[in-house]
């Protein structure tokens, strides 16, 4: 039993952490979210160079890490820096491509290509198996029609992985270049300052090789995406804790630091307990994924991930709301860094299933077990 990071992993996290502290500012992030591509391209290049993208994937595919423990270490660090780069979408897309098109990973790892998944639709809420997008086999390829909802970092991508149902009712995944005719991407900033887009597909013609495989290919990608979000949320919560604690110690009211108020002290302790539980939930999810790396029994993995996403969603929002509350008026303003962390802490719950969704999944899975 060992909860410490391996030397390699620790080294990567240290490099990434230092890079964020020294080079990645919130000003950069705010600027990037104002328009396409919605992230800072120089940052992306540097993330590739220090090996962050490669660390998402196994050596077999040209990466050099890729274990669930690598993922949580990286994403916690990204969360702690509120980095709004397409790392999570690329992790998800790359996980699908590992199985379907491993040849594409080299450019992705090098930061030359960005592929993101577009798996959810407006009517589907958090269920990626509800698909209205249609694929028609034309003999020499496919045409796609439909739309995709709230696709993170779509404007940054040169290709999307789109789910669609064909004439036989079978759902599959398709690789769609973003410059293909009929692809319309309506980008927008999010309430958390990261960027996403609505995508419409009108008679989009694809060649034969575009079909990557069955929708089931998305399962592992979604699981990893969720794990990544959990770790990111943990990093954000840790940052919020430190900032709020610092504020309690320095802000003076009625002639004494507000942290001398016992009522706030006890609430701060509750925040700390919540965050320890978040960390454990993330570790549990990584361990369950690690244990199911090769197998086909994904039930335990998905249950642990739902437990983690539930824990992180619930506690993360509570941490955010308490951070705002304890900061008082200043916590309501955009000028404070804290506010941006808090907004992301809330909105991250709305990606890949919120706390309610995952509590229900957990219950259903426990009942089935």
């Amino acid at each position, binding site marked *: 039993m060992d909860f410490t990071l391996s030397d390699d992993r620790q080294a990567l996290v240290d490099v990434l952490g230092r890079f964020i502290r020294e080079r990645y500012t919130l000003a950069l992030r705010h600027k990037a979210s104002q328009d396409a591509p919605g992230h800072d391209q120089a940052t992306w290049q540097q993330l590739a160079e220090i090996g962050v993208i490669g660390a998402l994937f196994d050596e077999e595919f040209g990466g050099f890490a890729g274990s669930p423990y690598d993922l949580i270490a990286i994403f916690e660090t990204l969360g702690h820096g509120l980095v709004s780069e397409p790392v999570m979408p690329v992790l998800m897309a790359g996980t699908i491509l590992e199985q379907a098109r491993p040849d594409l990973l080299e450019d992705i790892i090098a930061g030359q290509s960005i592929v993101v998944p577009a798996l959810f639709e407006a009517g589907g*809420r958090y*269920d990626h198996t509800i698909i209205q997008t249609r694929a028609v086999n034309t003999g020499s390829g496919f045409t796609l029609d439909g739309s995709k909802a709230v696709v993170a970092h779509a404007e940054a991508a040169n290709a999307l992985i789109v789910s669609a149902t064909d004439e036989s009712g079978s759902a599959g995944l398709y690789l769609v270049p973003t410059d293909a005719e009929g692809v319309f991407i309506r980008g927008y900033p*999010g309430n958390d300052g990261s960027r996403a887009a609505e995508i419409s597909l009108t008679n989009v013609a694809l060649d034969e090789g575009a079909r990557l495989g069955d929708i089931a290919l998305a399962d592992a990608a979604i699981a990893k995406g969720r794990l990544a979000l959990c770790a990111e949320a943990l990093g954000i919560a840790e940052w919020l804790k430190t900032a709020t604690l610092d504020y309690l110690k320095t802000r003076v009211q009625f002639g004494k630091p507000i942290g001398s108020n016992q009522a706030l002290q006890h609430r701060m302790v509750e925040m700390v307990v919540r965050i320890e539980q978040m960390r454990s939930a993330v570790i549990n999810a990584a361990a369950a994924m690690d244990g199911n790396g090769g197998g086909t029994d994904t039930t335990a993995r998905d249950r642990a991930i739902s437990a983690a996403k539930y824990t992180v969603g619930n506690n993360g929002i509570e941490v955010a709301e308490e951070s705002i*509350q304890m900061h008082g008026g200043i916590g*309501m*303003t*955009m000028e404070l860094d804290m506010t941006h962390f808090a907004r992301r802490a*809330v909105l991250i719950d709305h990606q890949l299933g919120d706390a309610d969704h995952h509590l229900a999944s957990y219950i259903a899975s426990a009942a089935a077990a």
Partner: protein
Amino acid sequence: MDLSFSPEEQAFRDEVRDFLKSELPARLSDKVRTGKHLDKAEIEEWQAILSRKGWLAPHWPKEYGGQGWSVVQRYLYDIETSQAHAPHVVPFGLSMLAPVLIAFGSQEQKDHWLPRMLNGDDWWCQGYSEPGAGSDLANVRTAAIRDGDEYVVNGQKTWTTLGQHANMMFCLVRTDTDGPRQQGISFLLVDMEAPGVEVRPIITLDGGHEVNEVFFTDVRVPAENLVGEEGRGWTYAKYLLTYERTSMAAIGSSKAGLAWLKSIARAEMANGKPLIEDALFAARLARVEIELANLETTTLRVVASAAQGGAPGAESSILKIKGSEIRQEISSLARRAIGPYAQPFPPEIDVEGSNEPAIGPDYAGVITPNYLNLRKLTIFGGSNEIQKNIISKAVLGL
């Protein structure tokens, strides 16, 4: 015990309903209902309608042009206007300054300012909070030095709601730095268009511009704009803070918000059925609905006690605590209800008067900003922590 309203009160409620039905423009109530922000012209449009009816300051005594309504009438009016999604009247002049002027102002001040309020001539804002003087108002440091017939004001105010629209501010300034902090504070009326006044927007975490910082650099204010006595501003501010607080329960707003939330939960689908039929969501909805029904009666009890002459004191802190919690919970559930569409930042906030189509369901855009904006409810107006301190001391004697 009799929880029904008297025939007179019911007739009054009918009158309010009829008025709202015929006079409230659907253009405005639609915006309010769906959580959109109103611009200055729209707020003034509604205030002009009320002014014509004589209902812009109905809670004022009749001698000053009010209707002299009872607390029950005021409660009914609040509920009815909220449920009809009428715009909120800007309270700073009408509800916050006016009672102070009526109680402590000179005859000249009353004669000058009150009719202008009823007529909508001025847009007042409040200058209490400063950096370092939020919950701890006695810490006010903005200085007003007497110089002949004028005060020279230097300092900074913050959290000035809608200050960007205001031409006048009533504020607390320090006229004396000796003695206890509460002394030496005075109550001053400042022309926002005077040289040396600068208003800077504060963008809040919902991305909106509702509050401001206001900077004073050698602003000269006529001494006749001092309200009451120099050094007694703290007393006047306290008077204001305890005046008319049952509205802090915000029953009407919460009821309107809950109705809207339910319509959204009926429209959203989760696991193949309307979200409102999801057991866990339905339970959360029911809990807040029950809490709200309870709080409405709690509020009525305070109103009834006030109607019988009991002054609503620290009990109003209970209304503030629970009322703000309920409104926040409704806004959280709305955010949760819309799922992934909580994320897009609405274009109408991004670009004023944008005509871009909505992203996702048309009701979705304003929901996350509203959730974020309403975090303020437990912070401003005396944070809920301060309210708990008040109850602990004043009601419980701890």
